[in-house]
């Protein structure tokens, strides 16, 4: 057997108890997640089966914790006492030893987590177990969870092997791992998330390998393992700095006051502004900002509008959400549910009691065998599709009783349907139907009634809101700007509202004022902004440049100027500290300039990284010049004197030619 094989065998044997623990932890996570599954009626937002949000979160935490523990225990056990010497003193490269240990650890971890995942997948794929359809791609979320565990595994190995203070920089590699966990939990693209996670795992693996090669010291290591260690520590430092600053800021300034302003429509069709402030309920003003005496939330006060998003946008699919595979349709909620299977574009009828698929509705009608149903020409542009579906040329819905598709609207020749939706008319919450094409908005206020057309205005529109004022028998149509109301701190033009009669005539048009969706009420020189001094100057600078490029040259807000100035100040302070430190440590010119520049660009995190990665040697008093000198240098950096060589009292040379004892009585 080769040295690598021998090492592998030994590691597998040692990891058996750890594998059992990981297997048990992952299995418990799956069992707990399935046990906590909410009823399917509540699964619109939380998902179901393998993609139920609690299950996904619990398995992510379980994978990360067990992997970190496995990596730590595998490497920490051999760092104590002289077992380390027994391990590494053999005629093979330490890289080979590390590779064998890591290969065994990774294999054991993957095995111990994949087995429960496969078992859970098989179980949830059985029709009677989960009250919703299954898709094999539900596994992908757990695959990234398991991959994120690899970053934690190597972080655990690095923490175990690297020599640093426990209350100092020892736990910092967890920062990168937590970041990878965040990517696993938040990134919507599978391959992108997997690539990012594996890249961070490679960084921590390299850093752990470096620590293994150098017996835990920061030097001597190859440049690439030191670079990986730097990246890993930098992520940890950034996390600690951000977290600490956030805690301190929230303690010093618990209130973060802001204001959101929306356009709303009262029951009589009047356009008003609805203002939300923190610690206060919504209030209403007229379009000029004058307060209105309206009790918020009063039934029937506001018009329920259909939101038709017509701007061209790429639909973000998130592989960790059920909506990427199935859309729940709002028919027959109690005993049966319709699911639009996005991959096949069929409507599956699912029986909640027997937990089986009853059949599928396709363009060719309903069939008990789903594969017989032909795809429906439906365009999925939004996840909130409920009862209405549309293709390029028609709008249709399901007739639940008849189990067939009913066409509600057919677009005139040459027009492509962009969006369709329902709005409340009187007591019927879905009585009105609105359809937007590239040129027109079509509306109808009652079932089987005629659609009236309204030409779309000649400016860029993002969302069209359509409602109905029963008393006046008029439609209210608002043309909102692209981006609608989301995340806009700058004043946005809100465009116009049109009031349209039942016959399609525009009765009047109201211009809406420009609005700031989000307005910060806290003073500019707030505590929160004072912490910008901890930010890397590069971040706000890049943000500012990006904003200027994105929206074109324009005035820069005072907030941004403050943040940028304070972070630049932080960068300068860090650079000065780094230069002083490197100068005192007699670092090379290149090293000094490099660390100073890096500390300026990355702020306080850069300086902390310098402290974490460079162990400063001791200094002693030079016997020649009496100044403090570094013990690691052969000659004094001040006077050039070498260290005094203590003479031995008895040597072979002295026997050959006896000389008086050179050591005085006080040695």
């Amino acid at each position, binding site marked *: 057997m080769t040295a690598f094989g021998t090492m592998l065998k030994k590691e597998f044997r040692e990891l058996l108890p750890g594998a059992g623990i990981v297997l048990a932890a992952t299995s418990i996570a799956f069992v707990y997640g399935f046990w906590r599954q909410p009823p399917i009626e509540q699964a619109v937002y939380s998902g179901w089966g393998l993609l139920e949000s609690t299950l996904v979160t619990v398995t992510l935490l379980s994978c990360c914790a067990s992997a970190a523990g496995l990596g730590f225990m595998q490497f920490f056990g051999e760092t104590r006492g002289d077992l380390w010497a027994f391990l590494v003193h053999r005629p093979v490269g330490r890289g080979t030893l590390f590779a064998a240990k890591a290969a065994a650890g990774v294999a054991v971890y993957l095995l111990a987590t994949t087995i429960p995942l496969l078992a859970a997948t098989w179980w949830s794929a059985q029709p009677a177990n989960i009250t919703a359809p299954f898709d094999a791609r539900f596994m992908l979320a757990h695959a990234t969870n398991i991959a994120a565990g690899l970053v934690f595994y190597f972080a655990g190995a690095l923490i175990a092997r690297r020599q640093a203070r426990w209350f100092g920089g020892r736990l910092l590699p967890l920062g990168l791992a937590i970041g990878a966990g965040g990517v696993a939990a938040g990134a919507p693209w599978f391959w992108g998330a997997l690539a990012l996670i594996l890249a961070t795992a490679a960084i921590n693996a390299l850093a752990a390998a470096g620590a293994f090669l150098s017996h835990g010291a920061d030097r001597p290591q190859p440049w690439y393992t030191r670079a990986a260690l730097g990246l890993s520590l930098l992520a940890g430092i950034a996390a600690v700095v951000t977290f600490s600053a956030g805690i301190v800021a929230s303690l010093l300034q618990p209130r973060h006051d802001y204001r959101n302003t929306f356009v709303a429509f009262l029951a009589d069709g009047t356009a008003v502004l609805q203002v939300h402030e923190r610690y206060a309920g919504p209030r209403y003003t007229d379009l000029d900002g004058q307060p209105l005496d309206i009790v918020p939330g009063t039934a029937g006060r506001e018009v329920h509008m259909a939101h038709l998003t017509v701007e061209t946008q790429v639909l973000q699919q998130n592989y960790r959400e059920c909506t990427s595979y199935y859309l729940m349709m709002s028919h027959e909620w109690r005993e049966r549910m319709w699911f639009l299977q996005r991959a096949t574009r069929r409507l599956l009828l699912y029986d909640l009691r027997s937990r089986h698929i009853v059949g599928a509705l396709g363009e060719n009608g309903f069939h008990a065998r789903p594969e017989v149903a032909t795809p429906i020409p439906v365009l999925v542009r939004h996840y909130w599709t409920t009862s209405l579906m549309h293709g390029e040329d028609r709008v249709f819905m399901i007739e639940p009783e008849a189990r067939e598709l009913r066409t509600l609207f057919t677009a005139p020749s040459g027009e492509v349907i962009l969006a369709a939706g329902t709005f409340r008319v009187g007591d019927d919450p879905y009585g009105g139907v609105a359809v937007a094409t590239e040129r027109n908005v079509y509306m109808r206020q009652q079932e089987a009634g005629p659609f009236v057309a309204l030409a779309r205005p000649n400016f860029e529109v993002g969302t069209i809101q359509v409602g109905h004022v029963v008393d006046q028998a008029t439609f209210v149509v608002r043309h909102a700007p692209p981006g609608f109301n989301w995340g806009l701190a700058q004043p946005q033009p809100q465009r116009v509202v049109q009031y349209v009669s039942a016959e399609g005539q525009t009765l009047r048009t109201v211009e809406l004022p420009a609005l700031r969706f989000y307005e910060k009420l806290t003073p500019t020189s707030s505590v929160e902004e004072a912490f910008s001094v901890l930010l890397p100057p590069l971040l706000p600078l890049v943000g500012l440049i990006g904003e200027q490029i994105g929206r074109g040259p324009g005035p820069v807000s005072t907030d941004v100027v403050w943040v940028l100035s304070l972070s630049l100040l932080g960068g300068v302070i860090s650079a000065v500290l780094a230069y002083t430190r490197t100068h005192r440590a007699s670092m090379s010119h290149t090293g000094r300039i490099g660390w100073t520049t890096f500390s300026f660009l990355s702020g306080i995190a850069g300086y902390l990284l310098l402290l974490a990665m460079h162990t400063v040697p001791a200094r002693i008093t030079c016997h020649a010049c009496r100044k403090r000198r570094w*013990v690691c240098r052969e000659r004094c950096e001040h006077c050039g004197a070498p260290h005094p*060589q203590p003479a031995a009292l*008895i040597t072979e040379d002295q026997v050959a030619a006896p000389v008086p004892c050179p050591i005085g009585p006080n040695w």
Partner: protein
Amino acid sequence: MTDPVIQTQGLTRYFGGKCALDSLTLSVPRGCVFAFVGRNGSGKSTTIRMLMGLLQATRGGARVLGYDCAILAPEARGRIGYLAEGHDLYNWMTVAQLEAFQAPFFPHWNKALFDAVIEHFGLSRSAKARHLSRGERAGLALALTLAPDPELLILDDPALGLDPLARRALLEAMVYVTRRDDRTIFFSSHLLADVERVADHIAILDQSVLRAACSVETFRRCVRQFVLQFPGRPPTLPEMPEILESFSAEREVRVTLANATQQTLSRLAELSAAPLREVPLSLEDAVISLLSRRKQRGFFLQEVAS
């Protein structure tokens, strides 16, 4: 002296602000049994760990079998047998499993030698390491260290905590190695009786500084003890750099000298009422005298007695 197997030049190690080893310059000749002696915390283990490439030197350097210790190559590790202080082994492994784990790494694994050593210590091949006594563990660790047939054996306090029988067995095994040509043993120890029994060279560390490095024979020649006799209470001896230690009794003073010249002996003889009498000194006494140089042991006890 043939080419040295270990050579250090100004080897220094600091732990934070504490100096663990100060400018060690040492040469270990091939084919000898070299004892590395010193009190606890004098820097013996630190030196050995640096020689093994397990610890980086703060300053200076060392070469073992011609290889730089800072980057000790795998082939060099194959030629060096290293027995660490605590005899740490994988506790869950049996003797046979430890052999099976160790053997594939070493191309010249000597199974007969391994079997001979474990038989010497009376070890069962099916015994788990965790169930072995301290002496048996030491024997097993030594067997694992010897079986690769190393050119140089470095042992860090191998007899620490062993009973006399186990110590004797360990020493016999070490002597077995020295019977082979050109094999060198470099070992640290507190047990000077053992050193006297097997070592032919000695290096003494005190407070991180090398105080002696020579053959045992030379050391014995350099450190000598004489008795000065007086008719009454002994006078205070004059300050002489050669005096390592003096111990006053009722009518005599025992003086231990290092590197004593004829002039020194003449001065002492003038003080004594009778001719100087040399007392045979064991290696242990000689080393203790050297290491307790600063303690002024005789004077301290004299003060207590008075």
